[in-house]
């Protein structure tokens, strides 16, 4: 199948290095301490944060830092056909873990010892890139809850189809069986908190590409150092997020054949 036509357009009219449209809203769940709805094209995710609060299960309490818990689920209506999925299957357990670990990295947990922060993320509509959307939504919800953080994590995925690197895969591209990488970065700190490669492919032929991508990535990382390939446009976002405004977040990953460059833009549009 042709995912990028000879004119350089993808199936939905984007060019390879373009993202889908982003929309974000803070404070979607009134009862929660912080919440956000985040959309990347047709992928729509809601996140709610409770805490910091008292640890419910005393045995889990950590004396010098806060306990971060995360629960990920997919709404039964999120994909086109209705399917009843048991909560806690392998995939959602894994994504829960990924989100928790990513968030734990940027929350200043040592400021809140003996307390607990709960992050709930649910996919309302799935169209590829749910992992990244969940992380972005969770970040906004944590910021909305006023939880002290080192930085705001932003995440996006990239894939490799028709020998072309593609940014922000949608469902059709995602299910084509090519390799894809999800990256989460802390733009202000020039740090990568998440790098995950999915080899959701059955044929061994296709496995070679992710290896190449990873190899390249690792080499860049070692030789050039993080700061050279991570160009960050710093602009404070936390201050604005305290007020329930519509925040626009634009991320631009550039994954070219020889170097991986991550560029993050943050901007705010007031309502």
């Amino acid at each position: 199948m042709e995912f990028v036509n000879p004119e350089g357009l993808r199936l939905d009219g984007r060019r390879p290095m373009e993202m889908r449209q982003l929309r974000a809203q803070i404070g979607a769940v009134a009862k929660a301490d912080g919440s956000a709805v985040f959309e990347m094209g047709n992928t729509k995710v809601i996140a709610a944060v409770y805490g910091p609060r008292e640890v419910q299960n005393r045995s889990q309490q950590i004396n010098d830092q806060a306990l971060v818990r995360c629960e990920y689920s997919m709404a039964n209506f999120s994909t086109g056909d209705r399917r009843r999925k048991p909560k806690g299957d392998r995939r959602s357990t894994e994504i829960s873990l990924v989100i928790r670990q990513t968030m734990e990295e940027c929350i200043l947990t040592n400021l809140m010892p003996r307390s607990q922060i709960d992050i709930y993320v649910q996919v309302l509509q799935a169209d590829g890139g749910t992992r990244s959307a969940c992380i972005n939504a969770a970040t906004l919800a944590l910021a909305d809850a006023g939880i002290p953080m080192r930085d705001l994590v932003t995440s996006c995925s990239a894939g490799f189809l028709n020998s072309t690197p593609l940014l922000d895969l949608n469902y059709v591209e995602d299910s084509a069986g090519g390799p894809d990488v999800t990256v989460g970065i802390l733009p202000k700190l020039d740090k990568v908190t998440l790098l995950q490669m999915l080899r959701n492919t059955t044929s061994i032929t296709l496995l070679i590409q992710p290896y190449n991508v990873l190899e390249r990535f690792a080499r860049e990382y070692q030789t050039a150092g993080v700061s050279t390939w991570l160009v960050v446009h710093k602009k404070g976002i936390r201050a604005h997020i305290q007020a329930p405004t519509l925040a626009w977040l634009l991320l631009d990953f550039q994954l070219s054949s020889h170097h991986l460059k991550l560029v993050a833009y943050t901007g705010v549009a007031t309502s």
Partner: protein
Amino acid sequence: MLHSKTFNKKTRGGRIQKLVREVYLRDDIYCGALFCKSCEDKSKARLTATASTILILDTNVVLNQIDLLENPAVEDVVLLSVVLQEVKNKNSAVYGRIRNLIDSPARRFVVFSNEFHRDTYVQTMAGESPNDRNDRAIRVAARWYQSHLGEAVKVLLITNDRENKRKATEEGVSAETIESYVKSLGQPALLDLLVQPASEDVIMEEVEDMRPSKRKVVYPEHKPMSEITSGLTKGIYHQGKLRVNRYNPFEAYVGSESIGDEIVIYGRGNMNRAFDGDVVAVELLPQDQWHEEKSLSIVDEEDEEEDVHLVPGSSDDAPRTSIPVSSSTFDTNPVSSRPSGHVVGIIKRNWHSYCGSLEPMPMPAGSGGLVYALFVSKDRRIPKIRIQTRQLDNLLDKRIIVAVDSWDRQSRHPSGHYVRSIGQIGDRDTETELVLIENDIDARPFSAQVLACLPPLPWSVSPKDLNESNRVDLRHLCVFSVDPPGCKDIDDALHCTMLPTGNFEVGVHIADVTNFVHPGTPLDDEATQRGTSVYLVERRIDMLPKPLTEDICSLRADVERLAFSVIWEMTPEADIISTKYTKSVIKSRAALSYVEAQARMDDSRLVDPVTKDLRNMNALAKIMRQRRIQRGALTLASAEVKFQIDTETHDPLDIGMYQIREANQMVEEFMLAANVSVAEKILKEFPECSLLRRHPTPTKEMLGPLLRTAAAVGLNLDVTSSKALADSLDRAVGDDPYFNKLIRIMATRCMTQAVYFCSGELSPPEFLHYGLAAPLYTHFTSPIRRYADVIVHRLLAASIGIYKLPTIFLDRPQLTSIADNLNYRHRNAQMASRGSVELHTLIYFRNRPTDTEARIVKMRSNGFIVFVPKFGIEGPVYLTMRGDKGGGEWFVDEQQQKIRKMDG
């Protein structure tokens, strides 16, 4: 820049599902006109400033008139993405051709992605069919172009759909049919390229006048697709690919899986407009209509097609009272129990372009230039095709290419259109090109991407190659090569040293092509496609670019080259004690020709190392050969001839049978041994994905013609096994020195060709190579000119653990498709070589009427077929005048294969 729009789409994937897709509508899609002031990006712009008219084509125009579009007279064309998408879904071959036009820098074709442009995106309206929606999208885009480019330029929508044209005019878009547009260009020759419109199309009225008023039905109607599908599931109809008999175009076979046998189809009426290669649905005839043995005659086309010379107004559509049926020249054993049937429908057409010439006809007077002519394809399996032309006098003496457009029930001949002419009939270059086109051989120069994969020149063995841990330095060995004279692509070399134990170390060194051709590169893809080099009489069409073929890989004398070696330790009795496979570096001491090698061996005064090694090898080879023949290997013969070509004019000077010397046999023997050793090794390591070569055991039926001919001369052949056959062929010696050779040629013709296959596809007993009497065989020894050998090199390298196996080998369907392509290319290359030889034979005899001896090889009711051993040609001799069916003064008994004079 991003404008999101969502639309709903329903698809069926077993059940109805609602799909939601985003469409990002853009404002950075440019019109592609160089003179446009508002579009910034001109990098892809092609439409010239001088263009007064810009054409926008509708899908059907692109699909049907691609031959016209390829003509440089049509320029400044905009192809909309909606059109390209439709073309791609309907016909991928046409899509490939239109993409070539777009990519060609010489042409002015641009793509406009109207489906993603903010102003030209069209949403399906309620109740609108996808077709109507696409037509509307085309009109919207045409209108956008007109308003975008302003009044200075005329934007013309080309459509043959009457409704679309009407709506376009209503909406203020100028629209024309392709016919009227081409007419307005004022180049009558272009009109020939137009596809004949099908009966219900726009300009039918004009055609109607020229045709006979009463149109009679010649062929039965094809069943509708729905009926065919249900018939196939019920088992009434049988699906298969139609193959027309090469020697008799009125007989065809359909290999049907549903009845597990071939269905024979006699006559054009039963074939019902199917072409060779079409996938058809066949209905079996009642058993009493299955054909019995019929008269065998040299099929004479003239007999079958009387009065088909047509001029406008004449009737070419007269129904045939009876469909003449005759059997093939070579299939002489029609068993009455063989099911025969007739075609009820065509599932997939295999129409493409055909080469040939127009049937000679007088110039009709006063027809205004427009005439119908009959095109005769060089491929006899293709029926005559009727074309319309305005340049008859120009085309009559040309070789031309014609494409088929349609074949309706009322017409005895399919109708087509002229595509291009190749050149004068009888001209050597024209005819050679024809041979290439006919056999689907790509003789184009290699593309820049392919050439970019070559190592920089001048190339020599680098220290890095020498230090490679897997590569053994064998430069000290006395290696030499023996090849035909003038051979530049030397892919094999040999060495033979005596060991202190009295045994011999014998090495076969093959050019290490895979060191330069890496999987997945454009070079590798190109070689996969080409499959093999093609050897014509006066030129060679390479599989790999010339620097690799003639220099870097070629194991020339006195230069260091990389090789892949098979090294045996052999006893003086030629028993293999051990086999070693390794990559190596060699330095050939001598590149000998067969004649030179033979002369050295025969000249007892010479005692230099190369000659001594040659003699040792020859002794070993003789033993090996003897052993192989004892196992039952067949010595088959072919009517191969050798030309002496004038170096200046490339015209043949002399012609003669190819002489085989002991030196040839010696080299052949070691190559066979290397191939067998490699086959064993790779199969052991990769039982599922090895590429091997098999030669199926011929069935009794296939050998029938041979047995009958042999019986006619009182010879009894034993065909129970290859050994028995080989022995009885050896015994078949007549008074005539050519007799044995003739019998062997005939035996060769009865057998099927050897084929490549993937070892996972068949069970081990089927791996047998009948002709060589080898249980396992593959091709390893000619990687420069055969792609199969490249694959085998990769397998061997992986099996000795020096390289990883390329992933393609794990994908069996793909490996099988590569093997199929190799078989196809191999067969085509052989056909092309034969065609080239045939052509040069004809050129040779054009000015040299010759008297020579010939042998009768076959009897037919109206003549016999003779073989001329000296020139390796075969042809019919008629005893009766052409068209005269009566036996005349001769009486022929086909069963006895005897001929008598009537009065005698």
